[in-house]
């Protein structure tokens, strides 16, 4: 049953300050909407509960992608297309460009934004695992000012985040100059385009003298939030990637993930495939020094 659009207020104040003033004046009353690729689907399906929406689309302060000496800063309003077409991201953070390229299809990528992907807080979202392995920071803004934290602290639980009702995500900051020699990203879904992940795994790492010197692993659709797999990382750090060690890492992964059965897949399938993806990543790590 479709929604009755006459029941929805929707305004476009046009500037970041004006949106923040509105959110601050009536905290929680207004729901921000950028490209609409999530909320308009809910509207079409008759399940958009929020009745007052405020447009973020076209607000220039949110959309830029800029580089300083230490950080690449992606405005929350940057679209997947903006991310795919940015030369610095392609060169320094290629996993992010790749995850953007397989989010929806072109028309969705032209409207969907990085901020929306993060705030929607789906455990299956494509960009968060990549942001986690790149150790991104996230900047939140309200009329009272900005605050910045590790992105790994942003998600609190299923669809719950630290974002306050009067805040917006302003930008994501990626640390430059720390690129590791092995980068891995694989998404398993029904088809290449338009599919939401059954499971996805991102990994970056480096070997030194036959041992794991650095490793960061994050997953989608394996826990209630996008998550770093720090127990698994701990099993690997400082060790040679023998077959016993890889088996131990698989076991650690299976213990720290909490996959569920849903319409896209089963917990059992997700767990098994996630362990296989981990092994594929570790085989790339092992081969990287030879």
């Amino acid at each position, binding site marked *: 049953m479709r929604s009755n659009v006459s029941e929805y207020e929707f305004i476009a104040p046009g500037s970041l300050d004006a949106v923040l003033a509105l959110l601050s004046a009536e905290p929680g009353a207004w729901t921000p909407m950028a490209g609409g690729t999530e909320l308009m689907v809910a509207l079409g399906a008759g399940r958009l509960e929020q009745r007052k929406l405020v447009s973020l689309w076209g607000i220039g302060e949110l959309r830029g992608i800029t580089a300083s000496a230490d950080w690449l800063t992606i405005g929350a309003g940057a679209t997947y297309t903006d991310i795919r077409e940015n030369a610095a991201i392609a060169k320094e953070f290629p996993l992010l460009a790749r995850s953007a390229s397989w989010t929806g299809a072109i*028309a*969705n990528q*032209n409207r969907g934004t990085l901020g929306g992907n993060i705030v929607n807080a789906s455990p299956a979202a494509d960009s968060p695992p990549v942001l986690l392995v790149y150790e991104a920071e996230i900047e939140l803004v309200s009329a009272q000012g900005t605050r910045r934290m590790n992105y790994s602290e942003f998600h609190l639980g299923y669809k719950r985040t630290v974002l306050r009702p009067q805040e917006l995500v302003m930008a994501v900051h990626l640390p430059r100059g720390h690129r590791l020699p092995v980068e891995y990203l694989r998404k398993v879904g029904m088809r290449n*385009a338009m599919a939401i992940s059954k499971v996805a795994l991102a990994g970056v790492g480096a070997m030194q003298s036959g041992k794991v010197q650095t490793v960061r692993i994050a997953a989608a659709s394996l826990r209630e939030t996008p998550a770093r797999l720090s127990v698994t990382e701990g099993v690997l750090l400082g060790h040679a990637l023998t077959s016993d060690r890889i088996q131990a890492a698989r076991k650690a992964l299976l213990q720290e993930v909490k996959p569920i059965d849903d319409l896209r897949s089963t917990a059992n399938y997700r767990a098994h495939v996630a362990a296989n993806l981990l092994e594929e990543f570790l085989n790339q790590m092992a081969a990287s020094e030879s």
Partner: protein
Amino acid sequence: MSAAKIQLSEIRFKVNGVERSATVPPMKRLLDVLREDFELTGVKEGCGEGECGSCSVLLDGVLVNSCLVPALQASGCEVLTVEGLATNGELAHIQRTFLELGGTQCGICTPGMMLAAESLLRKNPHPDLDAIREGLAGNLCRCTGYMRIIDAVKNAIQEPILAADLAPEETVHK
């Protein structure tokens, strides 16, 4: 639940080169404004959730699913629908190749397919097969099996190829 009636917004667009305006609820889908207010029924609704591409239009030259764009966000924009592809009664290049190569059967996906192809070719005038497949990946067709659509886009890269120039098995079934 009957909410108080919300304020209507006057939305001005340029649609297929012509200035138009509509006074509509600001959350009305661009798809519905185009079909109901402007009677541009070449814009189709398939899934209504951004998965099938039947409602594709170009918004300021950018391919979008018009079912996911609220009218207010299209305010001040230029919209191109399939009705705007032809000029002075002459089919656009991409329309001719779809016609000549049988890229159309039931026709529901066709306007969206053509706009996705138009968008692709504007950005990348010489796409390879992978780029064509990616450019059309958000548009579903349940009739053709896609091969004839892909052929139509491939052939739109060069000057139009007329049916008479094609091998017999590639001609359109009239």
